Structures are given as C-alpha cells and as structure tokens.
C-alpha cells in the first residue's frame, strides 16, 4: 500500500465506504447503450412504440443485437453500419420496393457489411441457410407424413369397426 493510499483509507469514513460500494454496484449494473445507435433518426431509425424498440419476431431482435455487438467489439464503427443501412433503404426506394420490412433491410445491411469486412462469406451464408431450410422442409414433410398416416389409421379403424358392427 502506498502512503497516499494509506492516507485515503484512514480518511474514509464507513459512510464513504458504503457510498463507494453503491457507486461500484451501480457501475457494474449500468449497461451501456450507445447513443449513436439509440438516437438514429430518419428512415433508418428502428420502429418504436412509446419510445421502446419493437421486435416482431425473435430473429429481428437477434439481428439488431448482432449489428450492435459487432460495433461494440470494434469490428466497425456504427456510422459504417448506418451507411450500409441507408444504402439498402435507398436501393429499395429506387426500385419502388415498399414491401420489404425494416428488419429484413437491416439484415441485408448487416450481411453486406459483414461480408465487406471479411467476417463471413456469401457462400457460407448461402450454404448454411440452405441447410437450415432443408432441415425445416424435412421436418415439415415428416410431420405431414405422420399426419397422413394418422388419418389413414383412423379411417381404417372406422372401417373395421363398421365391418364388425355389420357382421355382428
């Protein structure tokens, strides 16, 4: 302990210590919201309700979270993401596209930037998305087949019961 630190420790009253503990706890609890993200205005601003962000489905929140996390980690400054988003929106506008929802544009902007920065390649994204889609399709097909089998069994049971009834 240095002389200064010892002096500071002597000077600190229990009240100061408690205050310091509260401050420390508060700092640990305080999560950082980047004002550059939070204060986006204009067509690139995320939709809100009573001031809160609105995610209509899980992937929208995850996509927002990915974009912010990558920026927080220093992989790109937020203004670069914002430019990427503005570019996607302008391209939609020029093409007269008013259908594509905000977060699909947001995802496209994130994908463009991630590819541009060499974080992922379009090929691996295409491949993994196709893999997920195939898995989904297989699950849907299996479910449909199970439903059909169930229906067939139910029909057979009914027939059997009717046959038993007419024989008896």
């Amino acid at each position: 302990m240095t002389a200064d630190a010892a002096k500071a420790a002597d000077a600190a009253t229990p009240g100061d210590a408690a205050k310091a503990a509260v401050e420390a706890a508060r700092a640990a609890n305080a999560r950082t919201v980047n004002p550059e993200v939070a204060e986006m205005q204009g067509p690139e601003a995320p939709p809100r309700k009573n001031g809160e962000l609105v995610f209509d489905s899980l992937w929208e929140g995850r996509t927002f979270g990915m974009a912010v996390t990558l920026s927080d980690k220093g992989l790109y400054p937020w203004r670069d993401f914002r430019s990427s988003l503005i570019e996607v929106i302008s391209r939609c506008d020029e093409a007269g596209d008013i259908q594509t929802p905000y977060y699909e544009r947001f995802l496209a902007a994130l994908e463009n930037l991630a590819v541009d920065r060499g974080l992922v390649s379009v090929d691996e994204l295409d491949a993994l998305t196709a893999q997920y889609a195939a898995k989904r399709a297989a699950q849907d097909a299996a479910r449909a087949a199970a439903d059909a089998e169930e229906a067939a069994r139910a029909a057979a049971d009914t027939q059997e019961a009717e046959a038993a009834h007419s024989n008896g």
Partner: protein
Amino acid sequence: MSTSHHRPEPESYASMRARALEALLVEKGIISTDSIDAVVQAYEEDIGPRNGAKVVARAWVDPEYKARLLADGRAALMELGLASGQGAELKVVENTPDTHNLIVCTLCSCYPSGILGLPPKWYKDFAYRSRAVIEPRSVLHEFGTALPEDVEVRVWDSTAELRYMVLPERPDGTEGLSEDELVELVSRDSMIGVVKLAAPARGAA
C-alpha cells in the same frame, strides 16, 4: 412471435438467414451468443422510458420511497440501480390536484435519458422549447390536456447538471393493481408532464 396464428407458419427465410449469420459469427469466435443476449436486453430495457415507469410505480406503492425520491432524486434512483444520465442531478416534481408540472429544455434537449430513454422528436423542436415556457397551457391543450383554471402550472427548465422528471398522479381505479401492473400504465409523456394518466378502462386491467 406476434405473427398471427390462424395457421402454423413456416420459419421465414429472413429468420433462417439471421440464424445462419449468427451461427457463423459464433463458430468463428467473433461474437458470443451471450454478448448478443446482453445487448438485446440492454436496448429493450434501457432505451425507452421503462426505468422511469418503474420509479413512478415504486413511489406510488411505497410512500417512504416517494419521500426519498422527492428529497433526493439521484440517490433514490441509485437505490434501484438507475441513474438520470450523464451524471446529472435529478429533481422529481410531483403532480397534485393543485399543481401540474411540465419539463422542457429551452436551450437544447437536456433530458433524463437514464430513466426516460430517448427524448421524443418534439421535445427537441424549437416550437416546444419556446412555447412550453411562454404559453404552457396552450401546449398542454394541444396534447389533449385540459387543466382547470385554478390548477397551477409549473415549468421546469432542464440543464446539463440538473434534469427533471414529473411524478404523475396515480390514476383512480388502480388501487388493486400490483407494482408491475402499474409500471405498464406509466407513459413517457406523463413523466414529461404533457399528459395526465387516464384511469385504466374498466375490466382491461
């Protein structure tokens, strides 16, 4: 998730594409699922007025907390692990049947962002900043808030060092509600003071 469920919907292409992107970024060690979770939670909870609503609901149910909140806003926020934003002091001003409070920042857009999130666009507009001081009753009227003549209107001008928040009156008919339910009733605009909170519709709460 809030998509209509009149028939089971297949996962959208965008959802699968987003999952693929996340999986690749995680697999490459660029980001972790946990860090995305933390960011989503922070932006869902700290970007809007929810923290302010929690403070208001606590003050409504706990008179001792309310007394501490009115005496020293900053310390009372700290009790709940909150801060008013940018290290500023916070003064909480209470609406009563005789007094209605309104906050403004005439010079720029100082705002208790730690508890109310982002200011609405109109809060930063020159029209609101100037008129809130000169003719607060007309401004309130435009927000649909009609006050009897004998109610005093007080306007509080925020600065970088001192921010304000309005403690709205607890609406009638909310006696049976829990603290969590009360949080849902408190709107951003009521904590700026441009509106009063209406009693919840019968049977809705």
